[in-house]
């Protein structure tokens, strides 16, 4: 799945997460760049990153910048938001 524009999903409500999936500059080589800001960063930062990477890998996204503003979301919520944001960031989704 190729990320061609910015896509957003989620909210800043407590228990939710705001996710933005964005394209990266092409010359830098394909990679996932994760930027995680969380109220529970110290305890769950690594877990959040793992869930985000896993979700993107299932979608076949290998080159993207992902910005996460987490408000204590549970795994299933993070997955749903990342998936929705990634779909909105691809050309196939909806009208141009």
């Amino acid at each position, binding site marked *: 799945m190729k990320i061609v524009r*910015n896509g*957003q999903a989620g*909210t*800043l409500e*407590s228990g939710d997460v*705001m996710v933005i999936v*964005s394209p990266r500059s092409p010359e830098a080589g394909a990679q996932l760049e994760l930027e995680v*800001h969380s109220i529970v960063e110290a305890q769950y930062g690594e877990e959040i990153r793992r869930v985000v990477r896993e979700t993107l890998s299932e979608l076949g996204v290998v080159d993207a910048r992902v*910005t996460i*503003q987490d408000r204590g979301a549970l795994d299933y919520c993070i997955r749903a938001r990342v998936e929705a944001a990634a779909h909105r960031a691809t050309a196939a989704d909806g009208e141009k």
Partner: protein
Amino acid sequence: MEGVTIRRASLAGPDGRRVEQFLHANGLRMERGLEYTLVAEAGARIVATGSIAGPVLKCFATDEDVRGQGVMATLTTLLLEEEYRRGNWHTFVYTRPHNLNTFLSLGFQEVARVDRSVVLLESGPESVRDFVATLAARRTMAGGAVAAVVVNCNPFTLGHQRLLETAAGASDWLHVFVVREDLSAFPYDVRRTLVRRGTAHIPNMTVHDGGQYVISQATFPSYFTRDPAEQVEDHAALDATIFGRYIVPALCITHRYVGHEPHCPVTSVYNAIIRRELPGYGVSVLEIPRLELNGEPISASRVREAVRLGDWAAAESMVPPTTYDYLRSAEAEPIIERIREGRSCQ
């Protein structure tokens, strides 16, 4: 959040007055240039508000009795969604320091703060770290006299040329930042091109995009409104802090040059704050007298006034040939037209 509803407020109607009163009761002014405002209401009473100006979320206020109820989280989400609809993905929050923790907990990052008056935060796919990395990649030297100048050049005059020649002549290298924000009569691309053409003879100089962090709508909104009643000192101090904290180390800057400004109150406050703040970052500030013509300093506003009046001889006497050629070109016609109609005087 129970019993609280959030909706868009039209500042033109009676809501405008209510929002202003609510801000006032919370020690804030309704700032200029607000494009979109939301109010949270409990019954007929406003309990929270927040607005958008460009990529900046600002004019936030909340009633004591709804704090901690997620009203700010919902309000901020809705404002961000509006920003994304407008294509602004890199967003800022401009607020009082007592709101800092609220926005940090919402996942915003602090860019800079001015004690007791204002804090600037940001969120989105880009950050000040990207800006610093871009600058650092264009660093030409570490050590030696490295000067910086910030210019809008609306348009580039003989005065600007003299300022840059002086700064470059006294330094090993000169970094020139052109204000990015497109709120001036001449658009950014034109302003930057005219700086390049008018300084082609200066070998030790780099021109940079001022981006979001050098006199932008986020750091310094009153620069564009030129309204001395705004919090010019807070804006200028925020801008100076960002310059000192991020730009100075990225480029190893040792000197900052500013043009003396006798007339514009906003710019003279800015110069004073720069002089006060930057030495704390190891930067010497030098104020250069303006180049004069007929006993009056040459300024871009004088050039625009000459253009407005159709006095091409006066305009030609205040700008380098590179700028004059542009002003008389077909490409400049729409801009000249706007200046003549007085639709953009800044």
